[in-house]
């Protein structure tokens, strides 16, 4: 993966699976490493192709792929959390990391932070959710129906769900069509969708102790913003930021996400628990 010049590629073995890891390497100031956890339907490169280099210009960043292709057994949250544990140990043996998760990655990161309070210095949960709700299940079911029937509508449906209305409205039609055509199910999509339909962190999220930034997206139709607000409610030391984007915030607003992560991780305690971060004045 050419996500960043000089990136080191390694494998970490977790529960018998080789997890591909992308490590930007050395940090001159020897700060804590930052670990990125991608979401369903993605890969490190697909979800963090822009965010990774932005962060890596500042500090050491490590991303990984789930690396689950070809497996048939049900995918579990525990298994994915174990992978994050393995990558944390690789990144900072016995030490702490900052964890940033997006979408299902935010769910994984939140669960990990709840279960490994001594390893997480700070947590950023972007477009995540606390417990799958009927709106999300409905979308997942519809997705499955379209996929199983081989429907051509799948691409359009994905784009319609993933992107914010303002973002789509500002695009030339040909580009939107191209996005729909290019929208193919990512690796291991079906197993991830099943897992997505059964998430419940209701009790666990409250156990997170790390300073946390929850980022919700105003136009999100995949993990609606009320889900992020619930995470904000559940996690004691959390602050909340809103981004004007759909679920595909990593392509719609990568620089704003970078700005939020960069300023939060520089001084996680700068804002008090419960703070709603104002939008920057532009």
């Amino acid at each position: 993966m050419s996500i960043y010049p000089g990136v080191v590629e390694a494998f970490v073995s977790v529960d018998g699976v080789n997890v591909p890891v992308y490590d930007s390497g050395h940090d001159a100031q020897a700060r804590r490493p930052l670990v990125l956890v991608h979401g369903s339907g993605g890969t490190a490169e697909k979800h963090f192709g822009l965010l990774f280099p932005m962060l890596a210009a500042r500090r050491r960043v490590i991303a990984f792929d789930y690396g689950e292709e070809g497996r048939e057994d049900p995918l579990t949250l525990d298994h994915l959390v174990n992978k994050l544990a393995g990558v944390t140990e690789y990144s900072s043996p016995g030490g702490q990391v900052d964890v940033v998760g997006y979408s299902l990655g935010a769910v994984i990161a939140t669960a990990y932070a709840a279960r490994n309070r001594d390893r997480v210095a700070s947590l950023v949960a972007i477009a995540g959710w606390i417990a799958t709700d009927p709106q999300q299940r409905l979308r997942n079911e519809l997705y499955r129906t379209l996929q199983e029937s081989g429907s051509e509508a799948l691409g359009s449906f994905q784009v319609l769900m993933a992107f914010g209305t303002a973002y789509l409205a500002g695009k030339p039609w040909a580009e939107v069509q191209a996005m729909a055509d290019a929208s193919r199910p990512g690796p291991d999509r079906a197993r991830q969708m099943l897992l997505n339909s059964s998430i419940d962190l209701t009790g666990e999220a409250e156990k997170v102790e790390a300073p946390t930034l929850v980022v919700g997206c105003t136009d999100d139709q995949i993990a609606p913003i009320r889900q992020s607000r619930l995470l904000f409610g559940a996690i004691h030391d959390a602050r909340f930021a809103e981004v004007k984007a759909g679920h595909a915030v990593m392509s719609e607003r990568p620089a704003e996400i970078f700005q939020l992560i960069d300023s939060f991780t520089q001084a996680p305690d700068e804002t008090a628990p419960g703070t709603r971060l104002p939008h920057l004045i532009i």
Partner: protein
Amino acid sequence: MSDEFQATDDGAIGSTTDVAIIIVGTGFSGLGLGTKLARAGERSFLLLERADDVGGTWRDNDYPGAACDVSSHLYSLSFRPNPDWTHVYSPQAEIHEYLRETAREEGLLPHIRFGCEVVGAEWDEVANLWRVSTSRGSFTSRVLVTAAGHLSDPKYPNIPGLDSFEGHLFHSAGWNHDVALENQRIGVIGTGASSIQIIPEVAEVASHLTVFQRSAPYVRPRPNRQYTAAEKRMFRRVPESLQELRAEMFWNNEARLVERQALPALLEAAAAVAHKHREAQVIDPEIREKLKPNFVYGCKRGLRSDDYYPTFNRENVTLECAGIDRVEGKQVIMTSGDVHELDVIIASTGFETTDLPISYIIRGRQGRSLADAWSGGMQAYATLAVSGFPNLFIMGGPNTGLGHNSAIYVIESQIDHILGALQFMAQRPDAVLEVSAEAENSYVEGVESRGEGTVWLSEGCQTWYVDPRNGRLTSLWPDFAHSFRRENAAFVPDPYLAESTTG
């Protein structure tokens, strides 16, 4: 021009006018700061302007086709949103009018001295104030702010004989509107940001246009269009819709910065857009090849145009890529020996950027000039304060250039810093703010280290962002715009008070 923009005199020439704050220049920077001062109830300030109108860049660059290349809703003051921008990229006259209206509506006209060129500014170490001499008398002030622009002094190319060209010669930033271009043989020197706006317009009227190109730019599509009446009224009635659009434009531009961090894949993708644009728009394969850039993408300011490339499909346009050897009479003689006979030459060759003219007329402690302090390349703490120059704030100086986002965002960040300093000084009437050399140097090191690994300092990148005298990245801010504000907007007294310079 209306009467209200007329020059006023402060009593008899020869007397000295004293105010709290003097601002040099009435472009976006000077007017922006002036607006904030006026709104805060400050009365003791003057804006000194050498021209007879406000607007700076947007007054001077009134060449055909002039327009902003950052979207208008972003390229405007946050505290003066304008629902009525006619285009995504509005024309010069409209931006100029926006600034004139700002001066009028914010009550700045009584504070402006037009036709007032600052020719000297000296720090008086005894009285702790600035002595400012101008073409219209003398002034003193506790605080001096230069808002004299970094693209305000036209630079001509160094071509033997150009001065004695026997046709008409002028610079893009000093357009001679008395010269009729219809059916003339015209040469445009340069293919930068201004040129690509000028060339399509001039080609329409010239009998023949010769474009002298030294280095072909990357030109990407410019999705310009008019705003509809519905949109304009929506922006007025639903102000947050304008604000959301502005934020979207800002963050889109921010995302483009990564392309410049020498990430081969992203650079290639961005360059590919420009290559595709050129291939789609230029018919003749030979010309297409000549228009192909040969420097790394992102090294220079990104350019946008939809009518630049098609201009080279015209019968009456020649693209000349050999070097100019000399000018004789009405002839431009190339190093190849070819000769172009011309009636008009338009020098569209940019501005003095690494060596700011204003630095030669400012003298700080011990009479040392700012130019002298900057002989190794310009530098400042927080981009605006220099050790040895007390109570001086420089807007648009070192490390304030952005290749990827709106200059206004940088300007407003500097305004915030200056207002913070002024508030601090208001509470301590004897305080003299002078940044320590240590604070300045460690700040500058922090900025310069970020330039490493970027396209600007990569091999083969010749850009005005880099000082040719020492290879330092002195003009550009080599980071995000939002980082500029985070790092520079807040005024913190400590770095200014380290050397017990308080009176």
